[in-house]
């Protein structure tokens, strides 16, 4: 099993790393000091397990979990010192969570549970029902971590005009520029108010200034900052519905 540790405290990472050495079947492939770094590398690392601290700068562990594509997301174990709200939520659903300082017996149990879950997934293609996802359901994304040259920019959802995917990945466009993000269009569609207007495009309906109909049943959208976006016939209906056309 490939595991990744995300925690903003170096000592806490080290501590967990050392404890995980006791499980030969588990390999810690990377450690990150914040959620954004983790998100950036997640696709490439393809871990099975994420050990996620909850309180982290800018993007919390819960928000990171919210940004993951539910279909091929790793199993998540929250590691927290004290987060009454999160614990209350998880308690109902027996999700994996660990309390700091971590107790080795409790960790044993957790690893065991993870192994069972992963084995089941490999076998019957059974979709892992991450119960934290029930909790996250309906939780809107507020910030989209994006990469712009060497810097990380946290783009606020309301600033986005549209999001598109192409061969190089997913991009969000604001009136000030276009940024690359690790989030998938599917996650953006599910976890935000962005509306799909094309197989490759989501649009922020708040940013639409003009809709130009086309003969083939499709349309072109113009955003407030004057950018153009195609609408395919298949998704035009939902756009029209939104505006009551």
């Amino acid at each position, binding site marked *: 099993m490939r595991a990744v540790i995300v925690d903003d405290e170096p*000592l*806490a990472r080290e501590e967990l790393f050392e404890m995980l050495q006791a499980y030969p079947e588990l390999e810690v492939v990377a450690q990150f000091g914040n959620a954004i770094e983790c998100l950036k590398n997640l696709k490439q690392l393809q871990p099975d397990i994420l050990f996620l601290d909850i309180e982290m700068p800018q993007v919390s562990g819960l928000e990171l979990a919210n940004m993951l594509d539910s279909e091929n997301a790793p199993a998540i174990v929250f590691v927290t*010192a004290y987060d009454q709200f999160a614990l209350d939520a998880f308690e109902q659903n027996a999700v994996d969570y660990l309390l700091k300082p971590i107790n080795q017996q409790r960790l044993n149990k957790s690893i065991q549970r993870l192994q069972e879950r992963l084995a089941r997934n490999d076998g019957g293609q059974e979709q892992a029902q991450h119960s934290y996802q029930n909790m996250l359901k309906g939780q809107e994304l507020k910030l989209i971590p994006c990469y712009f040259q060497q810097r990380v920019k946290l783009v606020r959802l309301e600033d986005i005009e549209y999001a598109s995917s192409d061969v190089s990945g997913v991009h969000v466009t604001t009136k000030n520029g276009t940024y690359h993000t690790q989030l998938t269009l599917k996650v953006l569609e599910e976890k935000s108010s962005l509306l799909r207007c094309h197989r490759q495009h989501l649009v922020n309906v708040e940013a639409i200034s003009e809709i130009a109909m086309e003969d083939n049943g499709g349309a072109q959208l113009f955003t407030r900052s004057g950018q153009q976006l195609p609408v395919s016939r298949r998704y035009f209906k939902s756009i029209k519905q939104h505006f009551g056309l």
Partner: protein
Amino acid sequence: MILSDFSLLLSLAQQMSVFLVIAYLLSKTPAFLPLSNLSPRLPNTFILYCLFSGFCILGTYFGLAIDDAIANTRAVGAVLGGLLGGPVVGILVGFTGGIHRYFMGGFTDLACAISTTLEGLVGGLFHLWIRRRSSHNEHLFSPSIAFVATLLAEALQMLLILLIAKPFEQALHLVEVIALPMLTANSVGAALFMMMIRDRRHLYDKFTSHSSAKALNLAQRMVGTFHDGFKQADAIRIANIIREETGVSAVAITDTQQVLAFTGLGEDHHKANRPIASKQTHQAINENKIVFADGVEEPYRCSSSDKCPLGSSLVVPIRGGENEVIGTVKLYESKRRLFLHINRALGEGIAKVIAEQVRESQVQHQQQLLTEAELKLARAQINPHFLFNALNTISAVVKRDANAARQLIADLALFLRVNLKRNQQTTRLSAELEHVNAYLHIEQVRFADRLVIKQDIAEDFLQLELPTFTLQPLVENAIKHGTAHLLETGEITIYSRVHNGIKQLVVEDNAGLYEHPDQATHEGLGMHIVDTRLRNAFGSHYGLSVECQLNQYTRVIISLPREPKP
């Protein structure tokens, strides 16, 4: 018939005495008030005119007929009228008196009529002259000026008699006889008259200023005397203040059941902590009204001793927030003294001030309790997160560096000890810093190179007293709501400075994420409590202020008084 100079003077003095007696009697009536307050308004001027014209006419009537002329004290009215009322009033008074004199006839009738009018004018000119020389009106009431003015006016009259009255020989003879007595009697009379007005004025001033000073003094001394509702210790202090300020024979304060304090005459048998015995007090409490036993028609009878020297009492109920009686203030006078009217009025005021103070202290007490409760809540809320993270850090360090782990445990112990100690209200900055540093050290180990801490506190700040738990929540906020949100390195700086002469402690972070907090949020609550406690301790000039530059810095500034409250 020719009288000798001396007997004429004597007779004029007699006239003057009658005059002065009338003036004295008048001074006891409200009609006299306009004389002493110099208002330029019309009713006042009118009264002045009537009064002094009256004196003028009376002066003529009381005069002695001499040689077909009248030796008189008319000039007093005219000159004083002019002096107090100005030239217009003076001329009018003089003219009225002059006309009246004219119709009395005699060979000086015309001369006297003109001269009386001019005498009024002389008084009026003096009025103008004094007013021009000084803004202070007190000189208008100077007896010596009245004396000089009248002397001049009378001399003028003598001159006019000589000039106008015919035949000249008769006039000359008349003047020889009456000049000296009239000059003397009128001038002295005017001076005495003015003295009476001035004394009356002073008495009035003194009386009003004395009683208002008394009331102010009382109110001022009673402010803040109640610390905690309506308690005995406060009552004793108040009773003493009231007795000192009012000078009554004895003062008692009761609640609705028993005497809380008694001070003054009869202390030997009127004791505190006894149930209320007097009829009047019960009546005041039950009927919620002021009960006065004046000692004449209704005597105050002490219920515990026949030899009690107290003869009269005033019982004023103290009303609480719902206008219900919560106690009484009692003022007593001994049998040998009269109950002063002013003390009666003060008594009612005192009860109001006490009620106000009790109410305020209750509110303040509630506020304080609330703040304390909030403080406890804040402490309780702050702990768990930090505590578990600290334990996790120690757990991680313990294998690598036993000494470092031991130091962390010591820090945590110190931090917890201060946090759990709840009875201490204030502390020295040095102790508060120790607490903060224990906390910061743990955070420093937790965040390692993601957190940089700087400290620069001037030596002379270290002994300052401040409410416990002032700095710690601010430092904690700076990390929790500030640097913890930074992906790059966070920087916390704690420093002292003197800004516009005010000592300040500043907690600064490099995140600049401060938003004006909602009081409902925990962050807002923490700052609010710190601010409230600072204001409670040092006054409303002190407390917290925040400077924030978005994404640059947040500075939370604690302003402390130059001289710390002991």
